[in-house]
């Protein structure tokens, strides 16, 4: 699972989290965000990561990480184990995103989910003009080798909240490293220009 290191994203996630909170980073990658939250928010932070190499990197940083697959291994955590559960740019890679969202909200009081926006104008233009599956900086794979099997747009995610019934507490769009609120009146615009959607959600 290739993740682009987006420092502004980490800052935004960090701003959504209260100091000293107990946090689980699902798909914690090399632990960059975990370290950031540890330093900036004094978070009591745990990670879960599928790649053995990445787990090793996290251990070398002194982070508490469990090797595992979020789709199956979130089961082991009791209800409300964490104040926040973070899922950074990986929702689209799961076989069953609905189960994952429900598990995030079972394990955590709140969840922070970020999604690479498939509704971004470059993606749309790419498909419109080339007629092939879009390849962009944040989505660098070909259709046949991408781990991203369930791409969605910011608008899709907002609709998803109504379909499977969870509350979006705060929604933000990242455009050229600038963050802005998403609301009903600007949704169409943000869905076209937002590179990343960041959602703070609750049951």
């Amino acid at each position, binding site marked *: 699972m290739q993740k682009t290191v987006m420092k502004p994203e980490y800052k935004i996630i960090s701003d959504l989290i209260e100091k000293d909170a107990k946090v689980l980073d699902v798909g914690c990658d090399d632990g960059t965000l975990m370290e950031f939250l540890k330093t900036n928010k004094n978070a009591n932070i745990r990670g879960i990561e599928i790649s*053995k190499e990445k787990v090793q990197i996290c*251990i070398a940083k002194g*982070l*508490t*990480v*469990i090797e595992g697959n979020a789709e199956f291994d979130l089961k*082991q955590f009791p209800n409300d*184990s964490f104040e926040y559960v973070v899922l950074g740019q990986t929702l689209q890679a799961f076989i069953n995103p609905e189960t994952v969202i429900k598990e995030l909200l079972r394990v955590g009081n709140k969840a922070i989910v970020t999604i690479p926006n498939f509704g971004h104008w470059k993606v749309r233009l790419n498909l419109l003009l080339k007629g092939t599956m879009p390849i962009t900086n944040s989505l660098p794979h070909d259709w046949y080798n991408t781990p991203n099997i369930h791409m969605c747009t910011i608008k899709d995610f907002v609709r998803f909240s109504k379909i499977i019934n969870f509350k979006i507490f705060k929604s933000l769009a990242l455009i050229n490293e600038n963050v802005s609120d998403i609301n009903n009146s600007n949704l169409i615009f943000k869905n076209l220009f937002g590179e990343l959607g960041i959602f703070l959600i609750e049951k």
Partner: protein
Amino acid sequence: MNIKENIKTLIVEKPLKLDCGQTINNFPLAYETYGSLNNEKNNAILVFHALTGDQFVTGINPITKKDGWWSYAVGSGKSIDTDKYFVICANVIGGCMGSFGPSHENPKTKKIYGTDFPVITINDMVNAQINLLDFFGIKKLFSVVGGSMGGMQVLQFISNFPDKAKTAIPIACTSSHSAQNIAFNELGRQAIAADHNWSDGNYNSKSIVPDKGLAVARMAAHITYLSKKGLQEKFGRKLQERDDLKFGFDADFQIESYLRYQGSVFVDRFDANSYLYITRAMDYFDLVKQFNGNLSDAFKNTKAKFFIISFTSDWLYPTQENKEIVIALNAVGANVGFVEIESDKGHDSFLLNVPDFLKALKNFLDKSYAENSHETRI
């Protein structure tokens, strides 16, 4: 060989009530240490050995003259760095490297205990070893570490003494010995019992030992410590110093010769009755049952930071059984990390040169120790 000269022994005066009901006191606990205890006494690591291990973790074992059983992991600059940490390891009670065991003389009968020795458990083993903390004046260990049966002792130790270790590293182990584990151990025990020299455990008095039975037990067990792939790659169907099959029952194949060698060197250093007692202790180990079916309760009072390690090709204590410990720890919100190390070397991976494992162990310890000293400074 003069065993006693090279063995440090603590005589435990305090009575220890064993799980079987008997109470022992004034019993010897043989131990070895590596590195030095710092002034704050916060750099001590208690290492627990596995079934056939002993207190001689690293360097040259003064009794066998071979490398210590965990030489890859423990030593100067290694994962468990003896330049930094004070490493303590004791021979388990029931063992045969100086600690109270079945080859000792029963003071009442003036005869070797043999099978009159009380059946001991993993719980008894750790309850005996806790005395080492008082002996060295250590209030809290920096870490408790062990693989296989050593890992079971780590779990039992934390359960019994939740505030006596900062970190805990159970490796390639289980919280409850499985039917398959018990079956293999029983095979070993029956091999010993089938040796005429065993004489119901009274062999020591005749200086004739059940070496054939013990060797077979070791051979069978040794197979369970390796993986099919590892065996195939190392030995395949290669022949032993011959060009063709000999149509007989000599060791035609290299694997046969290898196992026979493993069996023969083992009997020189291990006591058959100890093998029975220690395998029994492993079979009786069931931390889940000790806590009425809820393993999490074993860990609910501890603040220790756990790091659990398993190996992909370990079919004796497979990843799933290690993960059950992780799950139980998560259920009580314990601080637990887990990694499964890729290795073809089977259960024995933790004893061998497996760089990813050695790296993870070192990183976890060193990072936790840095936090540890930071806290102490504050």
